[in-house]
């Protein structure tokens, strides 16, 4: 009952602030934009980080005196479940006051929801889901994606790792769409680059103990253990490798590129772990630094996580579009369709005819002294430090 009371109070407070705000701000037209992400359950950290980032984009725009409209963010929780996702997608898409959407970290949810956006002509951009099919399995002009797909990521990863001289791999992936997709594309590109996969283990996304799989892996003695999945599992696998005395190089995917991976594994064990992420490194771009500063200044309790910048970039793009063409779904879709060479905090954005950002540069990261460092800036690049087995 206490929580209820609090919420009521804050809701009333919210309404009051809004009323006052509108009164002061000389009554700009109000426009609604939306965000969907997983805010409960296992990957909620990423979802909340994304929502905060999207909210930051809206806050900054509202603080900008030159903005033509007053924006209101509607954010919804998909729970990373397709059925819930379809519900909230319908709710948002059917609300004609909502002009644009930044949505989806979980690919399965995105897959279920794209049909709805198309049906309701709601222009949207994906901020985190990396399954290629989200953009490529349909011709919907409403669907865009600012982040790259797992295809780009694994292409770069396979090439890079074979260039380092590694020959043999054991792949462990979770059996969600995310892990399975990574498994598929990595295997494809690795074989093209001449690497060999000794074994391939699928594990469930809530598994705690991997010693059985890792013991088998140990017997095969691969150069690299590739893990396709998200941070929680990645942490467990890296820690348990140590228990079993496995000294192979640990290679992750974008799903583990988070501070919580380092925090979870501890600085010693995480040293030398590599990962790949779409987009230019945030802190390298002028806008990126701006984002980091603003995010910290906004005082969110949670970290923005790896995909926060994408949510921010996608939301900014949509807000720019509305400023430009006005609050109209069809016009916004058209605007997004023509985006080429757009400057964002994650690098240049250009959509192809499926709405996929083609300039999705992939950045290679390595953990050095308990921090994710861009490979080219690390001590590994000149041989001061060495990856495992080198």
């Amino acid at each position, binding site marked *: 009952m206490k929580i209820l009371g609090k919420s*009521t109070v804050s*809701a009333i407070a919210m309404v009051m602030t809004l009323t006052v705000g509108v009164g002061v701000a000389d009554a700009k037209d109000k426009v609604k934009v939306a965000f969907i992400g997983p*805010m*409960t359950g296992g990957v909620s950290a990423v979802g909340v980080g994304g929502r905060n980032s999207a909210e930051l984009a809206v806050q900054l725009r509202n603080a900008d005196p030159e903005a033509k409209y007053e924006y209101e963010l509607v954010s919804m929780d998909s729970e990373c*479940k397709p*059925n819930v996702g379809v519900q909230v997608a319908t709710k948002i898409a059917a609300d004609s006051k909502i002009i644009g959407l930044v949505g989806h970290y979980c690919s399965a949810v995105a897959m*279920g929801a794209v049909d709805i956006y198309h049906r309701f002509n709601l222009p949207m951009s994906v901020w985190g889901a990396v399954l290629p099919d989200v953009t490529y399995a349909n011709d919907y002009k409403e669907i865009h994606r600012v982040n790259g797909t797992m295809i780009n990521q694994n292409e770069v990863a396979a090439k890079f790792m074979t260039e380092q001289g590694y020959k043999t791999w054991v792949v462990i992936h979770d*059996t*969600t769409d995310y892990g399975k997709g990574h498994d598929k594309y990595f295997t494809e590109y690795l074989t093209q680059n001449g690497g060999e996969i000794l074994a391939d283990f699928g594990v469930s996304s809530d598994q705690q103990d991997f010693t059985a799989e890792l013991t088998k892996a140990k017997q095969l003695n691969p150069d690299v253990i590739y893990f396709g999945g998200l941070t929680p599992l990645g942490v467990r696998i890296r820690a348990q490798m140590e228990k079993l005395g496995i000294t192979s190089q640990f290679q992750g995917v974008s799903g583990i590129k988070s501070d919580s991976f380092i925090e979870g594994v501890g600085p010693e064990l995480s040293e030398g772990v590599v990962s790949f992420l779409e987009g230019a490194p945030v802190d390298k771009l002028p806008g990126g630094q701006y984002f980091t500063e603003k995010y910290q200044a906004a005082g969110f309790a949670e970290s923005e996580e790896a995909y926060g910048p994408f949510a921010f970039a996608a939301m900014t793009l949509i807000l720019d579009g509305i400023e430009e063409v006005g609050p109209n779904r069809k016009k916004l879709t058209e605007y997004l369709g023509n985006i080429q060479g757009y400057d964002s905090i994650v690098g240049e954005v250009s959509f192809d005819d499926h709405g996929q950002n083609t300039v999705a540069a992939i950045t290679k990261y390595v953990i050095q002294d308990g921090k994710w460092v861009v490979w080219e800036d690390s001590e590994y690049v000149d041989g001061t430090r060495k990856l495992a087995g080198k």
Partner: protein
Amino acid sequence: MTQSLKDKLVILSLAVLATAFMITFLAIEEQAEIFALLVLAAVLVFASAKFGLIETISGCLSRNERLLNGAVVAATLIVAFWFYEDHFPLLMIATVLLYTVASCGLNMQFGYTGVVNFAGAAFFGIGCYTAAVLGETSVPMLMVIIVGGLVAALVGSILIIPVLRTRGHYAAVVTIAFGLLFRTFLEVNDALGGPQGLGVSGMNIFGWDFNSGITLTDDIEVSFYMNYVILALIMVMLTFVLMRRIERSWIGLNFDAVRLDETAAACYGIDIKHWKILSFTLGNFLAGTAGALYAMMLGFIAPSNFAFSDSLILVSIVLLGGMGSLWGTILAAGLVVLLPEKLQAIQEYRFLIYAVVMILILLFRPQGVLPRGLRAYIPGWRG
């Protein structure tokens, strides 16, 4: 004024009140208003309990079952048509209706017969996947709903032996294990779309495509979800009649006897296995049919829809409504589906609050919101 006329007036005014409440509840978005409405509802319920109104009302209702049933159907239709062009409320209404059908299936199992089933979402899911697979074929879609139920019942028959041989917690583990197994299997096995899920074709009856809206005039376009609301309502009505008739017959009596005392039941010739199999199979059938239509309506399904927590939601609907209580199930399905949806402001706190509310209900009203009454074989008949 005669008693019966008075009764009718009471029911009609209640129906009007409930309809108005539902429409307001579905229409408002502002969180403060939603809270206010909920508080108002709670106050009304408590106040009428305090002044003994509840007994008067329930007396009225039980004397006029036909009128009550008719009023509820009419109210649902009025609410649905009020939102004829608003997709989301219609989607929610249809979802509530389909959850009601699935929960009735579970109610048949442990509300009536006491057969524990913690894999409700799995059987619901079997219906969904059946619809996804058969949607690609030329099997008539209306048929697919039935087949969805049949497949669910058939797969359930794998569990019959362990379910019959075990009781209580042991049976719970059998179904929990099955639910986990089902989901993992779908995720690992790519034949049915794997973790990415599957698209499902929409409902289509003799060329009437459910997934396109109905254009009445240039200005009026009825949401395509209306199709699903109506079909789901028909399913609820059929389920309701089936459940009622079973309850009010010797079958229902046998179910109760099996639940309450297996040994005594056996000593009076009641074949425990026979009735358990019947109720388990029928329950799974209902869950499967609901799943099949749900999949068609959503158009997309994936294994993560059918997790243990989803089975728990179905179980909590049954328990919240009151074991074996049909009206309770309908009310609880509405609460469990709509409340979290309407309370989006509490976003990440929803699960926490939901769990706390469930605990409070189990502690302070373990019999559910609308406990099942005594069996009235023939409505209004007292010998």
